[in-house]
């Protein structure tokens, strides 16, 4: 009974959390906790994988908990299994990484218990099968992660981050709560199976969709609800950042898929318009934000926003196709989305691990004070490079495969009857392409400024390579990025049951295609073979190198940099993160960020240094969040005098309440 096993594992995680409250005092305490967590995650991962590969039937259970008359329902079906696998893959790596990284933690007591609780919460969300347990786990997850964000609470920004996060999280939860309220109806039929069975009016379904977009979207980081994400994810310890960015957003996506594709019933075609637009904007904006960042972890957080956008593009396409009964195409789009979910978990966790390693080694998150680390910490640099290539959607790594599949799905859009979609989808494709290209730029910047060039600060100059555990986790994920990129067919087939259950169809079986290439629709139409491309490239590169070294010169002389004859030893003369982003800022920033550059160039003969300053505004924050906060504050201020009136005035309040009620009574009939 897999579900029982899974629940036992979750129980174990909760046990670990409880134990951590005392264990953290031991010297090996954190290693112990993380080790145990990693083990449990591995078991859960195995459960999920076995379930998927065996393609077993849903396994259900009901505990005498939660809503008394309903009980807590848990269900492991293909979708949950897929996400169970993803979640625990990420968690296992994070725990492994943390065995080493956790040593840097100044106050383990503030991390360990919540870490395990957080893991438990995420797993429960994926397993829950009634509205109450789902929301309970969902909010529990938010709460635990909030505590983790607050774990370094002495930095002022973190307090702010934690506050914004928890408020946004509760807004999201409330939205989901309302959605479930509609789904369950006035009698409160909260079980997923009953919800699934019920019939609904289009209007009601539309409202639910919007609420879910707010609820799940805010957690996943859809623009404009993403504001908390770049604040909160970096604030946590790096392995937690990896979890939040790489895994928790996936749980949010799971919530969206579960409700919209599974519970809500067949979609309307126009839903996909909303989702696609949001997704496209998210993908592009997320990356533009990332490009403007100079804080490595915030850059990664923003790029999470972008990748969520890509996943939602896939989901939107799936909706569009599903609504028009094009199940095959829907299956393709959904597979692309799910595959990208996995991929993003892999490379985003990997990158956050890398950023954590850098942070641990130099104490710096600001790229302007890093540089040249490829020489100080080569292994980290290499895995970070792998992650960067992968996330930039470049062959032959995994990021490319999922985006390629998404493009293939977009290319099926002519089959859609609705004109709006016919025209919208290619535009979305353009946005996707733009975001992919910008991603490459962004990660050239991230890797180039952080690891290449010359050290911009003493801390960066004295950095040392990280410990074995962290490296093990990073190597593992780098390897997986390669594997998924080279033989994606296996993963696609593994995801097939989940896709089949939602899209009503599945992609053609990939594992028996010749040479293990992937053929989404038909061989004549399009195909891609990762490992072949890789082998070709490797061979030709190797061949070229060998030939040249063998038959031509192999001599190498080290000399000072040439730099067109004007070499300058000062690291300050290098390109910085912000100067690297300057062309893009010129192109997009002026409108998107109202970026204004102020140059103060001293007159000739004047000895003071020239100054160059750029001011940028996060317009979404300025126009959406700040006014809301201001409004609440305003009302609060206007109401405040009400608590220092004289007794007589209070009595008058009572009096008027009484009189008005009597008047109501009088005019009632």
């Amino acid at each position: 009974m897999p579900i029982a096993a899974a629940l036992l594992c979750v129980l174990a995680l909760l046990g670990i959390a409880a134990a951590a409250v005392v264990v953290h005092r031991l010297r090996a305490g954190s290693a112990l906790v993380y080790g145990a967590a990693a083990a449990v995650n591995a078991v859960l991962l195995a459960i999920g994988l076995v379930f998927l590969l065996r393609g077993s039937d849903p396994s259900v259970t009901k505990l005498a908990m939660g809503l008394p008359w309903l009980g807590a329902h848990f269900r492991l079906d293909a979708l949950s299994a897929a996400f169970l696998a993803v979640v625990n893959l990420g968690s296992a790596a994070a725990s492994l990484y943390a065995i080493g990284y956790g040593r840097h933690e100044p106050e383990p007591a503030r991390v360990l218990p919540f870490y395990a609780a957080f893991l438990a919460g995420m797993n429960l969300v994926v397993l829950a099968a009634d509205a109450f347990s789902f929301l309970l786990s969902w909010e529990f997850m938010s709460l635990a992660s909030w505590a983790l964000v607050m774990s370094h609470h002495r930095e002022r920004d973190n307090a702010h981050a934690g506050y914004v996060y928890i408020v946004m999280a509760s807004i999201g939860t409330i939205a989901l709560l309302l959605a479930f309220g509609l789904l369950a109806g006035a009698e409160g039929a909260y079980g997923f199976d009953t919800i699934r069975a019920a019939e609904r009016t289009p209007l009601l379904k539309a409202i639910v969709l919007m609420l879910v977009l707010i609820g799940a979207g805010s957690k996943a980081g859809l623009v404009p609800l993403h504001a908390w994400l770049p604040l909160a994810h970096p604030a946590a310890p790096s392995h937690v950042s990896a979890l939040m960015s790489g895994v928790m957003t996936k749980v949010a996506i799971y919530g969206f898929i579960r409700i919209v594709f599974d519970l809500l019933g067949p979609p309307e075609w126009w839903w996909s318009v909303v989702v696609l637009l949001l997704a496209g904007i998210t993908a592009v904006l997320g990356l533009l934000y990332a490009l403007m960042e100079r804080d490595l972890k915030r850059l990664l957080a923003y790029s999470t926003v972008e990748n969520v956008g890509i996943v939602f593009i896939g989901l939107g396409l799936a909706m569009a196709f599903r609504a028009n009964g094009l199940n095959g195409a829907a299956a393709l789009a959904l597979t692309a989305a799910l595959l990208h979910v996995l991929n993003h978990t892999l490379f985003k966790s990997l990158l956050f691990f890398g950023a954590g390693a850098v942070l641990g080694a130099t104490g710096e998150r600001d790229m302007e004070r890093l540089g040249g680390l490829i020489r100080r910490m080569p292994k980290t640099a290499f895995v970070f490079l792998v992650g960067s290539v992968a996330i930039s959607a470049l062959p032959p790594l995994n990021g490319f495969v999922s985006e390629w599949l998404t493009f293939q799905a977009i290319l099926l859009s002519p089959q859609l009857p609705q004109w709006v979609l016919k025209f919208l989808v290619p535009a979305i494709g353009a946005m996707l392409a733009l975001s992919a290209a910008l991603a490459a730029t962004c990660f050239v910047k991230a890797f180039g400024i952080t690891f290449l060039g010359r050290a911009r600060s003493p801390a960066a100059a004295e950095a040392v390579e990280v410990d074995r555990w962290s490296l093990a986790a990073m190597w593992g994920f780098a390897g997986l990025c390669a594997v998924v990129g080279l033989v994606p067919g296996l993963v696609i087939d593994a995801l097939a049951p989940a896709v089949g259950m939602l899209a009503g169809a599945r992609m053609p079986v990939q594992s028996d295609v010749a040479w293990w290439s992937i053929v989404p629709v038909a061989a004549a139409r399009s195909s891609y073979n990762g490992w072949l491309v890789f082998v070709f490239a490797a061979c030709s590169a190797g061949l070229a190198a060998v030939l040249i070294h063998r038959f031509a010169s192999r001599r190498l002389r080290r000399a000072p940099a040439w730099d067109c004859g004007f070499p300058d030893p000062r690291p300050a003369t290098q390109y910085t993160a912000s100067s690297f982003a300057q062309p893009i800022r010129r192109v997009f920033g002026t409108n998107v960020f109202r970026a204004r550059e102020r140059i103060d160039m001293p007159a000739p003969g004047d000895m003071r240094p020239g100054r160059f300053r750029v001011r940028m505004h996060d317009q979404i924050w300025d126009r959406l969040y700040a006014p809301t906060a201001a409004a609440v504050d305003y009302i609060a201020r206007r109401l405040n005098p009400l608590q220092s009136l004289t007794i007589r005035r209070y009595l008058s309040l009572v009096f008027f309440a009484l009189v008005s009620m009597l008047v109501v009574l009088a005019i009632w009939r």
Partner: protein
Amino acid sequence: MSWWTENAAALVLVIPAIGAALLASLPNYRISARLNVLATGLTLASAVALVFGRPEAGAYLLVDDLNVVFVILNAFVGFTTSIFSATYIAHELETGRLTPLYLRFYHAMYQVLMFAMNLALLANNIGLMWVAIEVSTLTTVLMVGIYRTPAALEAAWKYFILGSVGIALALFGTIIVYVAAQPVVGPGLDAMAWTNLVKHGVAFDPALLNLAFVFLLLGYGTKVGLAPLHAWLPNAHAEGPTPISAVLSGLLLNVALHAVLRFKMLMATNAEVLAPGPMMITMGLVSLIFAAFMLYKRRDIKRMFAYSSIEHMGIITFAFGMGGPLANFAGLLHMTMHSLTKSAIFFAVGHVAQIKGTQRFSEIRGLTVTHPVLGWGLVLGVVAIAGMPPLGIFMSEFLVVSSTFARDPLLAIPLVAGILVSFGALFLRVNGLAFGEPLGSTQPAEASYVPLFAHLALVAVAGVYLPAPLVAWFQNVAKLLG
């Protein structure tokens, strides 16, 4: 045992009465603190006994599903609070804010309050109930004023004036109910007994019932702390001794609410009367939203949590106003959870205020660093009161919001807005209190953690698991409330 159960109802009243008498005559405050705990403990025991066997309704006393919930809750919180108050009061004596003489008075009054509240809950007679609530008001007035600082006196005075006006309105309502009942039931005590009222409610004059309900809602609503009748509540909570704040928030509000519910039940029996629902919903929403915004500008911890009590009373009233099995169940659950959580919070806050020597937010920071247990206890309490899982209030808010939105979306919107706004305020404050660079005294706390964590544990368990009998019982009451 059987004897115990038979006379449980009487014991719940007699024990506090005797306790009061003893404590009034005992000079030694240490013994009296212990005696206080003992008395409340015995009360709790006999209250629990009510579960196993309950006497049939007499002319004056009535034990039914509805009030058993309240009585037990009352006895339990009273008991834990007395434990807390033992340590708290000792500290107050050291700092010289209270003299032994006042302590004697305090303990006696504590028992009187217990007695009055239990009587108000158990009374089978609307007149008797009114008298009991009146007495509870007076005792709390005296306890709020016990520090005799200008602020305390002002608070007590405010509380006293507004409370007695409310009480007067309630009495007028009671009289009208009698006038309505008397032609049907016949003159005399019978016309004031619940059992008869509910039985013959059908035949009563609807116009009279309507009028009565207006007065009763406003009268007892003042004690419940519904806006705009709430004015006394924040000051009374902020200026009185913390155990009293805990009892006020945790119990007295419930007692008043219980009265309102009783009359709602009466209204429910009669078809022609205009539904009490809309009135309660309106007042509930007003209180919720008003309190939610008032939470922001608070500078005083206890005052802020007082406003949060107003907010939650608003939610509860709203839930009962919505009616229906789900909402009523949620209302009862929310009430129980709120009593436990809020009193727990006040326990924590009390100790914090004693350690730091101030109640101002601006002078307290980083509690989780300086006093981890207390700090995390407070955080947990706030998390619970904010309606976060896996704690009890989440379940009730889940039920209220979802069912309301399904039934009447437009009502759910202000409800949700209020909840969110208050949520924001609570976390804004707890961020400041519990985290950041520590500020203020770091002397170790000699606190009694048992009551605090006992409450929180109960709330946490209730969040994920409610025992079947309790559920059956709540559902039964929910049915009664219609």
